[in-house]
């Protein structure tokens, strides 16, 4: 980048000049800038009862699109409920529900194009379902069977699907944030009319990777939407022990990133905010940060019991702000909901989930040969050697390794 004052150019894209002394105002008094100096309001279109604020911006949304969002919300409710149950029955080892956050996750996913890359944290099964991930696909991952495209290597809920532009989930928190900046930069350089959305929790936003990622994205003009689900908790840690500033939105300003704060339980607001963010990111080649204010109604995961760290009263306060109910009320006010049909859909989904679960449970895990695949592009000698020793060993004690011993090929 050349020049001083005025406008600089990077590979043809206009960027604001960032001379650190330009345009700095001067004061002759000690000015202490305290938090709260900048007030970041939250976009809300639907009131908690589902009625529309009279002066609210409205997204363009037709009945079909609204129904798709609504159904995905219910689909996810059913899936979450059944899979938490399945974990309790010992059928899967782990599950993590997104109850209370359906509007944030599905409303944002609905505002994207299918070409946009989704990099999620782990609570965004709604985005994946909206993209078209099928029940059997969810099940194959959760039962770690050989039909899981990630080959049963990761814990349940760590989905990934190349065809749907959904990056495979990684447990270490925050790592996807700078990656999203890089992916988006690549999309821009390739001239794709697509961006990357990166989901994360307000807890993960404390990781160094968050700060690195936002700064990189801002400086390198990456078309990425950073979508923070501020759901009040990181496992047991409440947001007020996570940060003292004005949420996550205030940080966007610090990094020079356009920022929107939105009511995460208002699906129309999330939808509109994400549409707007997408438009800006693609047109102006820049990141946009969205902070969705919501609440994790669910336990952190099936390994967690929230009664140890929060009250029933607090949960109740948020239960009445249920995003699915709020949307339902709006749908009804539009006369877009056929209740009989909807009941049928929910019942059908239940059956489908149960049936798919039964089926996925029966499918074998990958053959033992897959243990050493994908470590590298091709297994090097030492892995081949280790595999061949392992196979001999399994054949010696077939009953100790029942999931693979019946299918050993010695070659």
């Amino acid at each position, binding site marked *: 980048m050349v020049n001083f004052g005025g406008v600089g150019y990077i590979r043809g894209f206009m960027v604001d000049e960032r001379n650190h002394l330009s345009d700095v105002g001067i004061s002759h008094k000690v000015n202490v800038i305290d938090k709260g100096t900048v007030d970041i309001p939250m976009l809300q279109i639907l009131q908690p009862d589902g009625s529309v604020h009279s002066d609210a911006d409205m997204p363009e949304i037709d009945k079909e699109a609204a129904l798709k969002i609504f159904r995905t919300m219910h689909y996810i409710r059913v899936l979450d409920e059944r899979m938490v149950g399945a974990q309790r029955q010992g059928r899967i080892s782990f599950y993590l529900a997104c109850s209370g956050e359906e509007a944030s996750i599905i409303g944002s996913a609905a505002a994207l194009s299918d070409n946009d890359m989704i990099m999620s944290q782990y609570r965004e099964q709604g985005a994946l379902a909206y993209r078209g991930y099928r029940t059997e696909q969810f099940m194959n991952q959760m039962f770690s069977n050989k039909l899981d495209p990630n080959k049963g*290597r990761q814990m349940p809920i760590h989905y990934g699907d190349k065809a749907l532009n959904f990056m495979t989930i990684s447990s270490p928190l925050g790592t996807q944030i700078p990656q999203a900046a890089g992916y988006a930069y690549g999309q821009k350089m390739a001239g794709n009319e697509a961006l990357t959305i990166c989901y994360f929790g307000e807890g993960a936003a*404390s990781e160094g990777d968050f700060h690195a990622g936002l700064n990189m994205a801002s400086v390198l003009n990456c078309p990425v939407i950073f979508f923070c689900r501020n759901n009040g908790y990181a*496992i047991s840690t409440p947001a007020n022990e996570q940060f003292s500033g004005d949420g996550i939105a205030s940080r966007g300003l610090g990094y020079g990133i356009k920022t929107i704060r939105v009511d995460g339980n208002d699906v129309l607001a999330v939808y509109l905010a994400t549409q707007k963010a997408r438009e800006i990111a693609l047109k102006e080649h820049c990141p946009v940060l969205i902070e969705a204010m919501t609440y994790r109604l669910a336990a952190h995961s099936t390994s967690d019991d929230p009664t*140890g760290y929060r009250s029933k009263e607090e949960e109740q306060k948020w239960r009445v702000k249920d995003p699915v109910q709020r949307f339902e009320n709006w749908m009804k006010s539009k006369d877009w909901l056929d209740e009989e049909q909807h009941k049928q859909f929910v019942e059908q989904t239940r059956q489908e989930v149960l049936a798919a679960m039964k089926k996925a449970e029966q499918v074998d*895990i990958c053959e*033992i040969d897959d*243990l050493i695949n994908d*470590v590298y592009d091709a297994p090097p000698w*030492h892995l081949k050697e280790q595999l061949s020793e392992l196979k001999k060993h399994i054949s010696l004690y077939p009953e*100790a390794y029942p999931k693979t011993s019946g299918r050993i090929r010695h070659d």
Partner: protein
Amino acid sequence: MTKMNMLQAINNALITAMTEDEKVMVFGEDVGHFGGVFRATSNLQHQFGKGRCFNTPLTEQGIIGFANGLASQGSVPVAEIQFGDYIFPAFDQIVNETAKFRYRSGGQFTCGTLTIRTPYGGGIAGGLYHSQSPEAFFAHIPGMKIVIPRNPYQAKGLLLASIRDDNPVLFMEPKRLYRASVGDVPEEDYELPLGKAEVVKKGEHISLLAWGAQVEVIEKAAEMAENDGISCEIIDLRSILPWDAQTVSESVKKTGRLLINHEAPQTGGFASEISATVQERCFLYLESPITRVCGLDTPYPLAHEKEYMPDHLKTYEAIKRCVNF
């Protein structure tokens, strides 16, 4: 003596240390009010106040950086990293800071009072990121001690010694044993020595060496081997760094054979270091090559976890190969 599981023993050690020295502070993700995701820090905040036991923001880099500063000031931080798999954002703080504070300042400043506690290891259906055993990464850094207990009694005594030792200590807790391992633990204060291995069982034909949860595994393999008339000496290394080469070498000089078992991948694992040293010290006593039974050189898999693990059967077969060499 009280029956405790490993978590209770760790909790008890922390209470002992915090009661005795008010400079001891315990912190990490979810360790405060909630008492940690495994409940190792239960009730500490209640008993000692928010100033001495608290939640941190979700940043391992921050936790260890903060702990380094706190230690250098003279306080006694016991920082928790929620899972060993998530210690890597703090790698720079540990490798370049914790371990080098003393050396680079000519001994003026140190993080010697720091203890980092972290659960590690597999066998719990944790897949890639809730199963790893990263001890060897840290064994490559001069300036840190690494300690791993095998049961509740060891956990309390070694943790107290780690907290009071004047060097930074990485205290790795085999999480598969957290609730599974139960034993008698003294209520009173006691320490077990750092840098000292323990011969858990005497034997004649082969020395079996492991640490943490894998000690159980070699014990089980040894039982199988005993039925074949093979007498195994079982050693718990306890400290990965500095490690007790003398105890191990004495054992190998007696038995003439050594098998090392660890969960971490074989290549670059700590067994490699032990093998090199033992063959230098015991070359003429060795009756067979030193044998390693380790995790495979792949990321830690979920569906194939059973196959991946260096279990008692693999160990038993390796014992026979070694003895019949």
